[in-house]
């Protein structure tokens, strides 16, 4: 009996080739809730990008004659106590929300990736030390820390900027947004990094012991290639899920800080400081609270659905099927 073993046999290679990313994408868009989340998030990004050209009014322009108006055809979401158009402020707030989400998550993720990867790779004492820091950062009451940082550092920083402005007359020092960047965003990132660090460390540890990484080592491939082509692409799934959830969290957190008076500095509109303003007068002018709260809630839910959908789509347990 001659053997056909070396011949290809019926080697009908599958007719279409599907990478795991494409496969995950298919699973994602098959999930209705995730598609909803994706659509809202896409809309949010769009509005944030082209918002200033969409708004019917300038978000800062005050109209003393049209204060605290109820929603109408002229002002869809009504006006606030300074006669500013709420819809315009909500639209501009999308830009702030996205800025907060991206900057804060970006910083937190960078810290997390750096510390997590170092901990996972180095192991031993370095690992123990970094994980100790992570534990500490996670056990500080986070709101308290942010509030303390902001209340104690904001005034000196603002004073310093004023002084600098008087000294140089450089308009850069008049922009309160820098204070937000450094203090508000910085302190938020400071309390948000530990989960990323833990996730990255766990991913490094788990993927490093996978057989395909051992195989890559056995092939004699240098560490750089192993990390770039074997570890990073495979570690990405859970990180994407975490980032998607993290973006939503950062938006909510900003509104919480605004409520406590340490969020994005007015007059820059953020949903948070609008909610916080609205809360003071909401019994008489409920629309001032309803509009920003509803938009924030919608965004949170959208990120939640998207995160869950991504988790299902990227969950390695389903790959084997």
């Amino acid at each position: 009996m001659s053997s056909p073993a070396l011949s290809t046999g019926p080697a009908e290679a599958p007719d279409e080739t599907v990478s795991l990313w494409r496969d995950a994408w298919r699973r994602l868009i098959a999930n209705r809730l995730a598609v909803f989340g994706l659509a809202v998030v896409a809309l949010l990004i769009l509005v944030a990008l082209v918002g200033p050209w969409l708004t019917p009014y300038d978000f800062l322009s005050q109209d003393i004659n049209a204060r605290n108006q109820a929603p109408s055809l002229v002002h869809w979401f009504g006006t606030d106590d300074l006669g500013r158009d709420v819809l315009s402020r909500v639209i501009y707030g999308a830009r702030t929300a996205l800025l907060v989400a991206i900057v804060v998550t970006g910083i937190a993720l960078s810290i997390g990736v750096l510390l997590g990867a170092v901990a996972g790779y180095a192991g031993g004492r370095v690992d123990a030390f970094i994980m100790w820091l992570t534990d500490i950062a996670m056990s500080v009451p986070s709101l308290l820390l942010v509030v303390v940082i902001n209340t104690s550092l904001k005034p000196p920083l603002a004073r310093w900027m004023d002084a600098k402005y008087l000294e140089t007359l450089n308009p850069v020092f008049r922009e309160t947004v820098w204070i937000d960047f450094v203090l508000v965003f910085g302190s938020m990132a400071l309390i948000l990094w530990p989960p990323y660090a833990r996730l990255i460390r766990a991913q490094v540890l788990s993927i490093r012991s996978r057989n395909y990484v051992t195989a890559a080592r056995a092939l004699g491939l240098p560490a750089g290639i192993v990390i770039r082509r074997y570890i990073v692409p495979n570690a990405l799934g859970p990180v994407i899920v975490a980032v998607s959830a993290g973006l939503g969290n950062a938006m909510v957190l900003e509104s919480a800080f605004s409520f406590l008076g340490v969020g994005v500095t007015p007059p820059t509109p953020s949903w948070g400081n609008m909610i916080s303003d609205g809360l003071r007068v909401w019994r008489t002018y409920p629309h001032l609270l309803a509009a920003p709260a509803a938009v924030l809630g919608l965004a949170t839910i959208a990120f939640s659905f998207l995160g869950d959908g991504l988790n299902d789509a990227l969950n390695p347990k389903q790959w084997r099927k």
Partner: protein
Amino acid sequence: MSSSPLLSVRNLEIEVSTRRGPAKVVDGISFDVERGEALGVVGESGCGKSITTLSLLGLLPPGARVSAGFALMDDRNLFTLSRPALRKVRGGRIGMIFQDPMTSFNPVLKIGDQLIEPLVYHRGLSRAEAWERAGELLRLVGIPGGEARLDNYPHELSGGMRQRVMIAMGLACEPPLLIADEPTTALDVTIQAQIVDLVKDLRARLGMSIIWITHDLALVSGLVDRIIVLYAGKVVEEALVDDLYAKPTHPYTRGLLASLPTLEGEETRRLPAIGGTPPDPGRRPPGCPFAPRCPLKVELCERAMPPLEPVDGRNSHRAACWVTTGAMEMAA
């Protein structure tokens, strides 16, 4: 074979939903299990052997369903039983042993608590009575100092021990039928030998029927009375064990037996391997599913599925092949 068989499965079809639509993973399987008989079900992964037995107990995974056929036991169709009646069958009339003794035990419950369950829910024993009986069962399956082991958690036992407990659990209510789904695949050779000997011995003592599912033709040869060979969801050959090894008739059975290296027998430089790979359940070819890999195939094989025909005129040995059973000439 004067009395009716213990279990009769007829024309069983099982569909699994896949992304490309429903796929028939089991396609018209029929077989009987006689009282006291040990039946071997042999096939490769994906041939439908495990899912067939799961269907008998109503344990199909989500997305799979019995789409045709029936399974008669005690004059009742197992597929149409009410939930309480089905529950009585599980563990009461049919005992089941699964492949992986690690994942098949609940890791957070003591093995005693898991072992007494069939006794409590079928026999109505009190916990204390069941516990005592469970100790006896452990001794029955060759675990010395039975009772002491009942307080162990599954991870505290070795793989072989766990499989013994699993057997005790399957036999707790002395069901007339025991289904063993690859019970030794996850075990080492020397442990596998222990388990095989144990089951042989228990069968001699208790006289139950056995369905032993495996991919290992060597393993079942000394263990069962009769074998059915499955390929791609179909029965391709059915025979008493001696006939099957003496005169394998379907080209797939022949190929499998020829490609097994053995400890005895002549050494050859090359193994006579079967080419190709088993077809995906979703995209099985029309006609005989083995045709694409078959060295003997003729044009008819790719068009029509051959019926199970007697080999040498004996009904106990049947194969589904146009060429080797001479069915083609008869059909012509």
